[in-house]
C-alpha cells in the first residue's frame, strides 16, 4: 500500500478509536475532576456496557434496545456503588483505591461466572463496507464515530449549559466553597459518578459490534483513559477529547513505521515527557 493510503487508514482508525477513548476518558475525567477520586474499576463499566449490550441484543434482536438500556443499567449500578461503597469511605483517596480494586475483582469474577470466559460478537446493526480505492472500511465504524460525536457534544452541553453542569464545575473548583453556596455536594457526586459510568458503558456498547464483549476487556481501556485524562488536563473536557484523538492518531501512525510494541513504547514516552514538561497536561490547570 502506498504511504498516503496507509496514512489515510491510520487516521481513520485513529479517529474511530479516538472517539471510543474520548467517551471513556470523559467519564473518567468527570469522576476524577469532580470527585477527586481514582476509580480503578472505571474500565469495568466499559466492560459491563459491552457485555450487557451483547446480552440485550442477543435476547431481543435489537441493538437499539441495547444502546438505550445497557448504559442506563450500568448507571443504576454506579449509583448503587456510590451510595454503598464510596460514601461510607467519604471519598478518601487511599480507601477508594482499595475499594474500587475490590470492585474490579468482584465485577470481573461475577461477569466470568454469569457470562463466561468467551468473547462474543454482535452483528453490526449496519453492515457493509465503503470501498475506498485502496481498502474497504466498515460503514458501522463511521456511524459509531457520528454517534460518539453527538454524545460528546451533548455532554459538553450538559456541563456548560445546565444547572447540574454548573454545580459540577463549581464542585470541581472548590468543594467547600460550593457547599457554602448551597450546592448539594452529595447529589453532584452521585450524578458525576453515574454520568461517568454511563459514558464508559456507552463506549462499551458502541464498540461491541467492532470488537467483542469479553470479561477482561476493561483493563486496556483503563490505562489509556488515565493517560488521556492527565494528558488533556484535569478539568478540561476539550483537553480530554483532543488528547483522546492525539493518542489514537499517534498510535495509528506510529504503527505504520514501527512494530506495535515499539509504537506503544513511543506513545507512552511521549505522554510521560509531555507531563514532565507541562505538569498540568496540555490544557489543564497545573
Amino acid at each position: 500500500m502506498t504511504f498516503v493510503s496507509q496514512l489515510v487508514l491510520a487516521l481513520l482508525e485513529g479517529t474511530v478509536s479516538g472517539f471510543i477513548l474520548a467517551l471513556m476518558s470523559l467519564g473518567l475525567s468527570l469522576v476524577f475532576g469532580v470527585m477527586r477520586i481514582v476509580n480503578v474499576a472505571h474500565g469495568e463499566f466499559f466492560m459491563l456496557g459491552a457485555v450487557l449490550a451483547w446480552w440485550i441484543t442477543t435476547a431481543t434482536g435489537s441493538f437499539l434496545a441495547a444502546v438505550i438500556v445497557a448504559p442506563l443499567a450500568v448507571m443504576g449500578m454506579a449509583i448503587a456503588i456510590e451510595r454503598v461503597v464510596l460514601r461510607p469511605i467519604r471519598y478518601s483517596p487511599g480507601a477508594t483505591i482499595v475499594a474500587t480494586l475490590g470492585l474490579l475483582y468482584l465485577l470481573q469474577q461475577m461477569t466470568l461466572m454469569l457470562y463466561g470466559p468467551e468473547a462474543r460478537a454482535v452483528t453490526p446493526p449496519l453492515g457493509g463496507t465503503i470501498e475506498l480505492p485502496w481498502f474497504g472500511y466498515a460503514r458501522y465504524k463511521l456511524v459509531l464515530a457520528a454517534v460518539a460525536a453527538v454524545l460528546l457534544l451533548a455532554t459538553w452541553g450538559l456541563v456548560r449549559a445546565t444547572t447540574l453542569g454548573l454545580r459540577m464545575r463549581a464542585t470541581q473548583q472548590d468543594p467547600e466553597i460550593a457547599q457554602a453556596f448551597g450546592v448539594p455536594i452529595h447529589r453532584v457526586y452521585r450524578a458525576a459518578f453515574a454520568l461517568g459510568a454511563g459514558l464508559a458503558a456507552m463506549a462499551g456498547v458502541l464498540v461491541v459490534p467492532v470488537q467483542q464483549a469479553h470479561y477482561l476487556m476493561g483493563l486496556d481501556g483503563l490505562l489509556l483513559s488515565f493517560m488521556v485524562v492527565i494528558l488533556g488536563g484535569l478539568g478540561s473536557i476539550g483537553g480530554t477529547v483532543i488528547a483522546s484523538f492525539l493518542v489514537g492518531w499517534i498510535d495509528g501512525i506510529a504503527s505504520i513505521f514501527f512494530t506495535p510494541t515499539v509504537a506503544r513504547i513511543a506513545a507512552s514516552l511521549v505522554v510521560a515527557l509531555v507531563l514532565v514538561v507541562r505538569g498540568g497536561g496540555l490544557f489543564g490547570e497545573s
Partner: protein
Amino acid sequence: MLSVREGTTLMSTEKLTRREMLKALGALAGFGALSRFLAPYVYAGASPQPPIKIGLQAHRTGIGAVYGKWYERTARAAVKVINAQGGIAGRPVELIVEDDGTDPKRGIEVVEKFALEHRVDFIFGTLFSHVVLSSAPRAGELKIPYLVVSEGYHVASGKLNRWTFQPGITDVRAQVTAIAPWIVRNLGKRIAMIFPDYAFGYDHRDFFSAAARKLGAEIVALVPIPPTETSFTKYFPRIPRNVDVIYHVMVGPAVLTFVREMGEFFGQRRPKLFGFIDSLEGVDLASPGLEYLEGSYLWEALPRYAGQYNTPWEKQYREAVGVDANGASKTDPKDVSTYSHMFGVWETLFVIKEVVEKSGYRGPKDYRAFVETLEKIEWFEEGLAHPQGPKRFVGKIHQAFGQQFISQVVGRKLKVVHRTKIEDGMYKPEADYTKQPL
C-alpha cells in the same frame, strides 16, 4: 427419660451403663477388624486401596479461561471412564483441580500446593507457555512428574527438566513442519505471517519460516501483533499486494474482530488464508463476522465436526466428554469446545494409567520407575485411550508426535481436506532428558 414407645437405640439419651458402652465399643472394634480382613472379599466391586491422586493445574480464570473450562470437563470425563474400568492398577483416581489464573506466579504456587499439601501423585494440564515455563522448574525441584498439555515447543527443546513431559499433545514445531508442504504446494509460495508477539507466536514464526523456506517458499511479511490488541486494521497494510497466502494464528478474545477486519480490509481482492483453529477454539464458526473465513483453511489437531475423523473411539470420546456433532456442549449448543486441545488432557490421563501399570508404580518412591518407563515407550496405539490418533513418543525429548489435519471452511463448518502422516512432522531431537539425573 425416653418413653418405651420411642424405642431404644444404641445412642439413647439415657445414661449408658459402663457395660453397655464396653459392649458397643467391642462390637465396633470387632466389626472394624473383621471388615478389614473381609474387605477384599466383601467389597469385590469397590476398591479398598488408596486412591491415586492426580492434580489438574487449570486455567480457570484469566486469559486461558476458555481452555481451562474445557480441560477440566475433559479431565473429569476421562477420570469417570478410567474409574469405571477399575481405576489405575485397581486404585480409584481422585482428581484435584486448582486454578492458576493463567498467571506464572500463581502457577508456581499451585504446583507447590499440589506437591506439598494435597500430596498428589502427578500434576498435569497446564497450557499457556509462560505458565508452563515458570511452573515446570518448580515441579522439577519438588521432584514430581509434571505432564503438560501445552502445544509449546518448550518441553521438546530441552529447556525444562526430566520431570516434565508432554505425551498427550503434539508441539507447534511438529505441527507447522508437517503442514508446510501442503501450504506451499496448494496455496502458494509467497507467504505473509501474522502471529502474536510472544512465545507461542515466535514458535510459529521461527519454525514455519524455516520449513517453508526449505520448500522454496518466500516469507514476504512478518506481522507480530501484541496479544492484547483489539484492533487490527492498521496492521494489514504491511502485507504486500503480491502475497499468495496469509498465514494467521491469533490468540485471545480479539479473533472475531481480526477476521472481520481482515474481510473488510481486503474485500474482494483477498489472498488465500491459512489459519489455526487456535484462533477459533471456543468460538462458533457461524458467529457474525466470520463469514469471511468461508473457503479458507484451518489447521486442526482433532476435527471439531463429527464425522470428519470417523473412528469408533473418536465417537466414544466425543460422547463421553459431552460434545455434540458441531463441537459444542451437548447441554448448551452455544458453548463451543476447544476440541483441538482438550483431547490432550484425556490422552495424558490414559498415559498416566498405562505407565503406572507398566512400571508397577505404587507411590512417590517409584517415581524413577515411572519416568524411566515412560521414556522407553515408543508408541501409543490409537484407541479409546488415544482418540486423536496414534502417537509416536520420543523419550529423549519427552514429546509425543501425531497426525495433523487441514480443514476447509465450507458452509460455515469444517471439512477435512488433508491428513498428515506422523513422520511429516518429526524433527531431530535437540536434547536428551534421559541423560539428566533425577
